[in-house]
């Protein structure tokens, strides 16, 4: 036998390690090039806030890409949903809860509509969502009449601009640690009940230790500068939902199967169409959430809000190892992809500032 046996464990973890190494390299370089500004709590907090909108879109996009589809319209839908939220509050005087419901519902409705066209009418996703890209951009321009609509509501702006208190951050950290321990316990129990008796304690320990170290480090850094920003909190929640859906649910498994081989999936009793519809709706919901953060951060809805965001989201997925052919990719990878892109963006602008200020001081 000359076949080389590849297991999923070896290939996927290798990819994850490489991505993390690339990210570490980028961070260290910028830290060095910006005279130790990059890796400060303040900048990392900024960085996390900057990536949250793209990150949320990337989580939904990843699940859609895994199922073998694509959505080019998320940037426009983001603009439209944000426009609806701002319009309902500033022009019609609705309150914050209504605005949130409107934005998320608009996302879900559009997602379901485009998903139905793709899944049930067999129109290629590329065509449907390219149409969406143009149509929803047109809709937001029509809605806002080409103007920027500001939002005065301070609670709304908090979604994009405020941080949670330091104490709340530590409480979240404690909850996170408890959850990590609980999942590890559940896994160990299931392993003991159904496994082949060979429990790998080192792996089990790493499975507990790495998340806990990650959680503590993250909260510690964020608390080092004003506490965890609310957009980052929302992004992390969405990412956790995405990780949970893709790794631990029947729905998630079916997405990989549908993307990997639609015929085999269908013949194995999977309802491809309904699952694809669901994932479009889910991305729609995430787009609505991202729209709220985006609008709240800027403090207003603009006709061109969210332009090109679809490309950021898709690029994050691909950088994170997803295959545009479907069947391959992880939410974790997509998040790292979004973080890599945000890091480059953030680092470059820091460099530009440093360069121009040094030019100024040189000319003086």
């Amino acid at each position, binding site marked *: *036998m000359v076949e080389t046996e590849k297991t*999923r464990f070896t290939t996927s973890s290798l990819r994850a390690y490489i991505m993390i190494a690339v990210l570490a390299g980028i961070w260290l370089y910028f830290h060095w090039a910006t005279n130790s500004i990059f890796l400060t709590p303040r900048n990392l907090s900024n960085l996390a806030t900057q990536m949250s909108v793209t990150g949320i879109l990337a989580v939904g996009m990843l699940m859609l890409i895994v199922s073998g589809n694509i959505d080019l319209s998320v940037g426009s839908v983001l603009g439209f949903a944000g426009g609806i939220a701002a319009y309902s509050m500033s022009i019609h005087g609705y309150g914050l809860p209504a605005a949130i419901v409107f934005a998320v519902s608009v996302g879900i409705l559009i997602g379901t509509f485009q998903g139905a066209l793709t899944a049930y009418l067999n129109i290629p996703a590329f065509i449907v969502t390219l149409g969406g890209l143009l149509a929803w951009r047109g809709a937001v321009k029509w809605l806002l009449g080409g103007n920027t609509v500001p939002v005065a509501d301070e609670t709304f702006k908090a979604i994009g601009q405020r941080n949670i208190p330091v104490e709340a951050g530590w409480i979240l950290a404690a909850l996170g640690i408890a959850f990590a321990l609980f999942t590890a316990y559940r896994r160990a129990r299931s392993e003991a009940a159904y496994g082949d008796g060979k429990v790998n304690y080192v792996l089990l320990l790493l499975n507990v230790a790495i998340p806990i170290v990650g959680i503590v480090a993250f909260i510690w850094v964020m608390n080092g500068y004003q506490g965890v920003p609310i957009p980052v909190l929302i992004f992390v929640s969405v990412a956790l939902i995405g990780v949970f859906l893709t790794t631990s649910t029947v729905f998630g498994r079916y997405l990989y199967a549908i993307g990997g081989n639609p015929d085999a999936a269908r013949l194995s009793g999977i*309802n491809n169409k309904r699952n694809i519809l669901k994932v479009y709706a889910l991305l729609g919901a995430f787009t609505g959430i991202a729209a709220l953060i985006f609008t709240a951060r800027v403090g207003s809805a603009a006709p061109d809000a969210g332009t090109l965001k679809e490309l950021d989201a898709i690029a994050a997925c691909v950088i994170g190892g997803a295959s545009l052919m479907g069947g391959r990719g992880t939410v974790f990878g997509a998040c790292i992809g979004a973080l890599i892109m945000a890091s480059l963006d953030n680092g470059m602008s820091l460099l530009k500032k440093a360069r121009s200020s040094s030019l100024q001081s040189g000319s003086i």
Partner: protein
Amino acid sequence: MPLLEMRNIVKEFPGVRALDGVSFTLENGEFHALVGENGAGKSTLMKVLSGVYPEGSFDGEIFVDNVPQSFRNVRDSEAAGVAIIYQELSLVKELTVGENIFLGREPSRFGVIDSAKLYHRSATLLRELHLDIDPRTTVGSLGIGRQQLVEIAKALSQDAKILVLDEPTAALTESEVETLFDILTKLKARGVGLIYISHKLDEVFRMSDRITVLRDGKTIGTHLAKDLTRDEVIAEMVGRDVGDIFPKPEHELGIPALEIKNLTVFSVDRPDKRIVDDVSFSVRRGEVLGIAGLMGSGRTELMTAIFGAWQGKYSRIIIIDGKERTISSPLDAIDSGIAFVTEDRKRYGLILEQTIADNMTLAGLKPISGRFLTDRSREMAAVREPMRSLNIKAGTPMVITGTLSGGNQQKVVLGKWLLTKPKVLFLDEPTRGIDVGAKQEIYAEIDKLAAEGLAIVLVSSELPEVLGLSDRVLVLYRGRIAAEFTRENATAEKVMTAATGGN
């Protein structure tokens, strides 16, 4: 003087000796079959011959026309007259036949392709081969069989003296196989040496001058085909005397598990055309019902429609264990206890980039793992038993399915369906393209499942398989049941006669 001589070829991979002193000769105008189980070293030997494994990566010598050769790459071997036609065709479907034949060697002047010359030379070439193919048609519009012939024409346009064919008939219909053999016979007459790799021993015996058997990277023997029997070849391939490779079934037949009444299936493209026309039959518990019929007789469509997976229109009454069931999707069928091991495992059966465990649990995921949440450990536990009983050769259930041999892949598909705990098992071409050892294991498994009381419907293009395994045989001809035979009175001649429309 041999046309080709390969002497003492040794090729090692980390941890395995894939070829262990293999010697092989080929004469001018000889049809030399190379047989062996998957993993025996056939493909490795051909990769050494074609320069895929360059000089230096293996030990041993290669002579073409008594001249020692050192191939550094595929170009070198092509220059020496070696051409290989792989199972997966390497033609560009969007280009025309002529463009494909001269791909990379287009007759041109100052970079401008001389189309007239290209098509003229292609036409001449095709005519020499007595192929009735217009060089201006696009390759994609031809059937697989004709594409294969185009590939052969392409090889010959490069003055190939040694032509290697790797499982060339796997995807061909019977008439296409005949055309292929006609052409191979003509090439023999022109002095071309043919190396033919195949699992289909009928073809091997029909066409070969000599047969070389490989096993575990060693040459077990080279014989004149006329001195050898089929059983002797199988014995050499598997290294043991297999006797009859089919089990001797004595099944206890129970109550009818599945009854089908008035099954009619319409074509997807032409909704008024009946592919299966008012067919009724039943299968009892513990019975293997074979369905024979030529390509296009409606065998696969019959199963697909019962399973609720046919994309066109269909109508039928399904009774399972005495109760009428409505089945309008594969999920309904699975819930009713029907499992369907589909044909073409790579296309319809497996997600090649996923693991054995992922593939095997897919059809029965909810009962195995959980209604909404999945549980890996439970899946692993569920998969372990069928992996052992089916003898799937892989270290762990986390091995990627695409890296397995065909036989093991087929067992994964079978395991997937057994995990749905079916009452009725449909098998469509369950041993296509897998080696004799794996075939025998699958036959034994089918027999065992029937003995355990499963009702089995078996469709296969290999007549010996249908005759060897079935308790009863239905013959389909143009979508209707043309004949029915019991195990005792079914013979190859009778079945073939009914399948071709005779009586």
